[in-house]
C-alpha cells in the first residue's frame, strides 16, 4: 500500500465517518463505500489541500460521461492514489 493511499484512506475515514479498516485499496469510492457526490466534494477539498494539487474532477466526469473512461479508473482507491501521484509529479516537473 502506498503512502498516498494511506493518506487518502485517512481523509475518507475522517470526512465520511467510515471505519478506516473498511477502506481498502481495491474499494470503489462510490460503489463500495457509497460516497455520494456531495461528500466527495469534501474529500476532494481535503485531497487538494493535503497534496497541493487540483483533482480534475470535471475532466474525469466528462470522460466517464463520454464513455472514454470508467469510474473504476478514477474512483477505485489505488487508481485514485496513482492519479494523485501523477498530479504531484506533474506539479514538481
Amino acid at each position, binding site marked *: 500500500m502506498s503512502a498516498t493511499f494511506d493518506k487518502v484512506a485517512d481523509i475518507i475515514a475522517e470526512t465520511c465517518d467510515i471505519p478506516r479498516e473498511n477502506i481498502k485499496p481495491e474499494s470503489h469510492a462510490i460503489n463500495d463505500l457509497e460516497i455520494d457526490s*456531495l461528500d466527495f*466534494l*469534501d474529500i*476532494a*477539498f481535503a485531497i*487538494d*489541500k493535503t497534496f497541493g494539487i*487540483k*483533482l*480534475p*474532477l*470535471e*475532466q474525469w*466526469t466528462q470522460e466517464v460521461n463520454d464513455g472514454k473512461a470508467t469510474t473504476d479508473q478514477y474512483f477505485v482507491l489505488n487508481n485514485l492514489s496513482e492519479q494523485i501521484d501523477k498530479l504531484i509529479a506533474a506539479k514538481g516537473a
Partner: protein
Amino acid sequence: MRFEYFQMIDRIVALDLPARSVRSVGLVPKSSTIFEGHFPNYPLMPGAFLLECMAQTAGWLLIALNGFKAMPFMAGVKDAKFRSAVFPGDALEFEGRVVHEGSGYAVGEVKGRRDVKVVCNAQIIFTIMPFPSEEFRRALFEWAERLEVPVKELAR
C-alpha cells in the same frame, strides 16, 4: 436587503480578484412579514438569512473570478456560527474570501459584522455549474449591476 426577492446584500463595496476577496453591505429592513413570525414581538434576523447573506457575498466573488461564465450553488456549510442577535435596521458588512478553487467546486470563508463586532461566520462549499440558460445569465448581469459590480469589466 429585499427578503421577498432573496436579495440579501445591497452593494458590493470592494472586489479584489488577485486577493480573492470581497466586501458587501446590507441593511436589514426595518419591517418585513418575516419578523411577524421570527419572532412575534421580538423581531430577529433569522440565522438562515445571515447564512444566505454570506453565501451571496462569496458567490458574487466566485462569479467575478470566473468572468460571469458559471454559477456557484451552495452545496455545504461548515462551522457556521451566529454570534450575536441581528435586529431590524442593523447595517451589516460581510467580508469574504475564496480559500480554494477546485475543479467544479470552490470553498469560501465569510464573516458578517455590525460595526466592528463579528455577528456571524461560516465556511461554505459551492459547486460551480454552467448557467442554466442565457436568460438566467442576463438576469444575473442586471442583478450584479444593481449591486454595483463592474460587470462590463469582469464578464469574459
